[in-house]
Every structure is written in structure tokens, then in C-alpha cells.
């Protein structure tokens, strides 16, 4: 333990925690981060091994409830969608797919434009300089000029990754249909970059990238932050944020690997534990002064959970596409039907991302659309599916609903005896209609591309990759948890920088936007350092 208390204590070493740690360490802050998981080595990842598809279904599963590693906490699921994450240095970026689209300008104005949910207190153009900075720090490969976004003045640091035979087929189909498509923005190296190797198209991104080509923050941020003096303590499970009589955060109580309780003092506390871990901690930190949980005077902590209901539309093609290869963070995207058209019977829209289809075990036991076939026809099934498919993944915008929420379990705990989070979630009618519409259009896309068969998973259970909204930002302390700079309205030295801060979910993968917002918050912490209230 350092003798001097940290200037800033960060909880969680995932995407947002790493961004803040690096920025603050570079600015000379004494930074300490507590992370319940551990470091992983590139050699840990199963992608290069024969047992890859077996490990992907257990030790490297995307659901903590399936992995059940000691560092995972159980999640009680009252939900048709399972929340997914990884707990370790790098957080969920260790197993994220690497797709790196930004939220769009309209996403920040859904109340003004569509009369639903709420506008954000910030907008796309305000975030743009941060997008450019995080694109460089993570390392993004992209084709510049996507007309689905406002023109950029600054472009991605690397050229785009290949779109593969499947991507080319669909791109041609969309050209005939007159529909938008674009090579995906990916936080994956297409060339050597920042001391990391380029992608080799192995497609095992969701169980860790053996090449280090994918931007996980254990590679992109933490080594630099540590070199600048940040202290990252692993195996440190935070059980509560402590406060003093003045209502200021004083640090965190945490449990070490041996089960001993410790306290880490700090002037400022930053929560970056993701949109399930963060509300869980705030609720666990209830006290006499904050009986409903820390920073919860609005009653919104844990509420408005959004997870992007997800459907998968798989097209099967006669010709071999070798579609077990290629970056999993999407080959191409389509934003043709992203914006509201009320004639469709719902508001807002969805992004489509075209993904590879996996190896033979996944073909025989499909985790997405499709069925198991046994008997002699099993071989025909594998022959027609393996390497012959393309998956349109449809990420539907999830509008906030206060009944979709994270609470604390009264019966289930993690391995440290800390109450587990319960997730109560159901899909709204607007999202159901949206998915149905998009499934129809994506089916047309596949058929136009020449698919002889289309298989659909209308709501995929293991698709809760995007955890958002459980401590929203806003101007009004009565209707939001955070101010527009990610500082809690109630506790002036407590910040929340993960996806909890989202006001609405957008319909795109969120990490690019989470990282940009976290960097903006870190800049604010630097700029307001002399006015920051801290405990005596």
C-alpha cells in the first residue's frame, strides 16, 4: 500500500477505467485502480488450440454465470437476455469483438427528434475530439468517409480490415438494393500499430486475441498508465465506497485474495465497474446518510438498464466462403434502417453488423440461429453450414424503462460473500417490432446476396454484451444520477465513467462512445482539479 492516499481511486480496470487511469496518470495524478480479476497472457487464450470451441463454452464463455471463475460474481437473471462481461485487467475488452462504431448524432436527441426517452446533456459533436483521441489510443482500422456519419476531420489510424467473401457478397447485394453498407470500424490492428501485431483473421476475438491485435486495455492502456505511475491492484474486490460526515467519498473497502478486508483511501473515487457492477456497488454502499444507496437521491441507480436486444439472421450460400475466418468485430455494417421512420410502427432503429460463423462444433451445436440435426443428415447439415454462412447481427436500440433494473440479491453472494446483483429485464414492445422489421429486411439482404436459406434467432439469449444506463447523466439531480461531466450529483468527489452513464442506448456497439465519454470526464477531472472538493 502506498503511504500517501491516492488522488484518484478507480474501481474496475476495463475499458473506461483504463482510459481514465492513463489520462490522469499522464497528468501527474496519483492513481490507484482496484480490479477484482487478474492479468491474462496472450498465451492463455484458447484461439490457437484444438480445444478452442470447447473452452469458448466454459472457461472462456462470455457469461460469468457459465464461466464461474473465482473472480466472476454471479448474476441472478430475471431476464430473457443474459448479461455478459469479463472480469480482469482489460475488463470486457478482453473478450469483446472489437467493433468500434460511434453513437450517431441523432442518438443524443431522441426526445427532441422522436418524442421518446430523454435527450442527452451532451452531443455527438462535443464528443468528436474525444472520439479521435480514443481511436488513436485504442488503434482503429477503418475506411474513412462513411456517409452514415458527419464528415470527419481526423481519420482512423489504420486502413480497414478485409471484409471477406461474405462481406463482398452482401456489399454487392446492398449496391443492387440501394442500401447503405460500409466496412466496419474495428478496434483491431490491420497493420502493426503501437507495438502490437496486426490481425491474422483467426476469428477467435471473443475468447481473447492471441496476437494482441485487438485493442484490449490490458495492452493499449494499462502498461502506459503503469509506466506513468498508476498502481493497479488485482485480485481486489471492492465491497463498498465509504463516505464521511460531509457526504464525500473517502475511499473503498475491498477484499484481497486471502479474504482479508482492506481500505484504500482517496481524494476522488471513479467507478468503472460496468453498468451492472457499478450500480451494485452503489447499492452496496448504502449508509445512514445514503439509505437507498450512494448517489441515489433520484432513485435511478440501477434503473433504466439497457442491453440492446439482439437478433441474428444467418444466410446460407452454396459456395464456400470460409466464413469461420475473419475478425469477429464485424466485416461490414449497415445503417440503412437506423433512423426513425414512423411508418414502420416503431421509433428509432438498429445497426447491422456482419460477423463470421464459427467452427464445426458451433456448426453442429449452433449458439446463434439454426438447429441441431442428428442421424445421417447431420453430415449434410455440417456440409451446407460450415464455412457457407454469414450472420447479420441486429443491435436494436433499447429505450430506457425504469422497471428494467439491477437490484441486490438477498440470497445469492459472490465468492467473497458480497450480495450478487439481480437483473430484472424485459424487452419492450417497441424493440420487438423493431427487431421483427429488421429481421425481415436483413432476410431480404441475405436473399438478394444469393442465400439459399435464411435462419433466424429472433432474440438471442447470450447477447447482453452491451450494459448501459443504470446511472444516467443529466442536468437535473431529480431525474439523473450524474451531471454532464460524469460526476454524481449527490457526492461531489464521486465519478462514474462506464456505460452506466448512458441516457439512451443508441443502436450501436457502445465501447467507442463509452471510451470517448470516459476520456472527456478524465479531462474534466484534470481541468477542475483545483476546484475539486475532497475529504479533509
Amino acid at each position, binding site marked *: 500500500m502506498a503511504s500517501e492516499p491516492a488522488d484518484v481511486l478507480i474501481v474496475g480496470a476495463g475499458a473506461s477505467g483504463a482510459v481514465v487511469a492513463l489520462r490522469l496518470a499522464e497528468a501527474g495524478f496519483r492513481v490507484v485502480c482496484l480490479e477484482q*480479476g487478474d492479468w*491474462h497472457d496472450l498465451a492463455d487464450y484458447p484461439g490457437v488450440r*484444438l*480445444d478452442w*470451441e*470447447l473452452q469458448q463454452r*466454459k*472457461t472462456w464463455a462470455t457469461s460469468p454465470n457459465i464461466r464461474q*471463475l*473465482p*473472480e466472476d460474481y454471479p448474476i441472478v437473471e430475471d431476464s430473457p437476455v443474459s448479461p455478459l462481461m469479463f472480469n480482469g485487467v482489460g475488463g470486457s475488452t478482453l473478450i469483446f469483438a472489437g467493433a468500434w462504431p460511434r453513437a*450517431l*448524432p441523432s442518438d443524443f436527441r431522441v426526445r427532441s*427528434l422522436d418524442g421518446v426517452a430523454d435527450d442527452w446533456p451532451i*452531443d*455527438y459533436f462535443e464528443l468528436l475530439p474525444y472520439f*479521435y483521441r480514443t481511436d*488513436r489510443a485504442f488503434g482503429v482500422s477503418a475506411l*474513412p*468517409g462513411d*456517409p452514415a456519419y*458527419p464528415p470527419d*476531420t*481526423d*481519420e482512423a*489510424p489504420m486502413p480497414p*480490415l478485409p*471484409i471477406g467473401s461474405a462481406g463482398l457478397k452482401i456489399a*454487392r447485394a446492398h*449496391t443492387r438494393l440501394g442500401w*447503405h453498407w*460500409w*466496412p466496419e470500424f474495428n478496434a483491431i490492428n*490491420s*497493420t*502493426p*500499430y*503501437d507495438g502490437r501485431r496486426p*490481425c491474422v*483473421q*483467426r476469428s*477467435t476475438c471473443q475468447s481473447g486475441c492471441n496476437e494482441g491485435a485487438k485493442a484490449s486495455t490490458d495492452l*493499449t492502456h494499462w502498461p502506459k498508465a503503469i509506466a506513468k505511475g498508476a498502481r493497479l491492484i*488485482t*485480485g*481486489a*474486490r471492492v465491497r463498498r465506497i465509504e463516505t464521511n460526515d460531509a457526504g464525500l467519498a473517502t475511499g473503498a473497502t475491498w*477484499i*484481497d*485474495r486471502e479474504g482479508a478486508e482492506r481500505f484504500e483511501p482517496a481524494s476522488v473515487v471513479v467507478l468503472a465497474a460496468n453498468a451492472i457492477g457499478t450500480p451494485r456497488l452503489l447499492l452496496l454502499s448504502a449508509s445512514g446518510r445514503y439509505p437507498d444507496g450512494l448517489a441515489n437521491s433520484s432513485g435511478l441507480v440501477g434503473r433504466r438498464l439497457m442491453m440492446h436486444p439482439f437478433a441474428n439472421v444467418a444466410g446460407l450460400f452454396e459456395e464456400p466462403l470460409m466464413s*469461420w*475466418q475473419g475478425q469477429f468485430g464485424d466485416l461490414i455494417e449497415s445503417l440503412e434502417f437506423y*433512423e426513425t421512420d414512423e411508418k414502420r410502427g416503431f421509433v428509432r432503429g438498429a445497426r447491422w453488423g456482419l460477423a463470421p460463423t464459427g*467452427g464445426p*462444433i458451433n456448426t453442429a*451445436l449452433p449458439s446463434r440461429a439454426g438447429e441441431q440435426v442428428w442421424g445421417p443428415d*447431420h*453430415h449434410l447439415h455440417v*456440409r451446407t453450414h460450415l*464455412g457457407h454462412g454469414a450472420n447479420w447481427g441486429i443491435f436494436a436500440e433499447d429505450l430506457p424503462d425504469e422497471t428494467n433494473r439491477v437490484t441486490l440479491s438477498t440470497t445469492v453472494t459472490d465468492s467473497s460473500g458480497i450480495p450478487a446483483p439481480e437483473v430484472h429485464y424485459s424487452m419492450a414492445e417497441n424493440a420487438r417490432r423493431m427487431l421483427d422489421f429488421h429481421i425481415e429486411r436483413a432476410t431480404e439482404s441475405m436473399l438478394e446476396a444469393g442465400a439459399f436459406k435464411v435462419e433466424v434467432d429472433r432474440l438471442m439469449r447470450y447477447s447482453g454484451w452491451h450494459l448501459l444506463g443504470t446511472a444516467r447523466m443529466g442536468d437535473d439531480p431529480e431525474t439523473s444520477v450524474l451531471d454532464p461531466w460524469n460526476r454524481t450529483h449527490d457526492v461531489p468527489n464521486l465519478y462514474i465513467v462506464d456505460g452506466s452513464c448512458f441516457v439512451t442506448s443508441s443502436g450501436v456497439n457502445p465501447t467507442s462512445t463509452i471510451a470517448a465519454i470516459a476520456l472527456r470526464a478524465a479531462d474534466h477531472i484534470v481541468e477542475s482539479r483545483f476546484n475539486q472538493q475532497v475529504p479533509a
Partner: protein
Amino acid sequence: MTASSASSPMSTTGGSEPLATLDAGSRAHLAAIAGRLIPEAHGMPSAAEVLTDDRVRFVLQARPDLVEPLRGALRVELGDDVQARLDALGRGDPAILGALHLVIVAGYYTDRRVRELIGYPGQLAIEVKSGAPSYLDEGLIDAVLARGPVWRDPVTGRRAEVAGAPRTYKERVWSTTAGSTQGGNDGGDST
């Protein structure tokens, strides 16, 4: 509590000899089920033939958590009729049936000969080629650009109008060396 150690589940080696947990009767049931689910047909061997001790051992060493459910799936009480056994598991024990399927499928598709026959070489490392992608030459990007901006302008609420937006890719300067190979600097601007 939190740390993964040298003996953590991250390692792929399970028990020393997981096959020792399966008696001859269980092995016979496994072979019969494997042959029923994946029989010899269409030029492919039967899983009963492919699931040698080596293959089953490989699966169970990689996934020691499958040993117990597999034993449950092969238990004597479920009788000798393969279909009746599968039906009973499907009704009463879907998780155990799932584990049984996984052992058979994983044993089968990690076999070298089977992989050759299905034309699956494993997940390959394929170098990403540099140079302008073919879809640019084919005009596929031009077709997207020709339709103009797609994003909705939050000020007007309508599709954006951007004066001077490029309508072909040639109007932009394409550079395969866009940016720099160093992170965290100002990157590059190829326009």
C-alpha cells in the same frame, strides 16, 4: 477468492485419467449414442468409430466439468434403448443431454481425419494484405457515396445535407498508410 492461480480453470488439463471414471458399460452406451447421433453416412465415418479413448480423453481433459454430466447421461438406469435414453434426458435433464452432445461433437470434430473430410483446417492465421481493397475498384463504395449522407441531422430531424460531400471515393485521397504506427499521438489525416 479472486485470483486465478496456476491451478485455475484457465488451464486445459483436467483430471489425470478422466476415462477411468467411465466403466465398460458406460463406454458402450457412449459408442451406441455417438453412432446414432452421427452415423456413418455421406462419406463420413460414424462418431462411434471416431470417438476412441484418445478423443474422449482429449475432450474430458480439456473440459473436466463435463465428466460428471457425461456419467449422468450414461447411467445404467436409463436402459439399453438409445432413443429412449435420449428422449428421457431431453425431457428430464436437458443440461446433461447438452453435455453428452458436446462430448460427442467435440470428440468427433477435433479428429484430424474428420476435419480433413469436412475441409476444415482449423482457425488459420491469415496475413492481412495491404493495398486498396477490391471493392473500391469495383465501385461499391462509390455507389454508397453517390446516394449522399445517411445520417439524420439532429437540428433539422431530416437526412443531413452536407455541401461538397464526396460522391465518389476518388474525390478522397486513399492512402493505405493512413495515420501512424504509434498509438496515442495525433494519428494521420489522409484527406
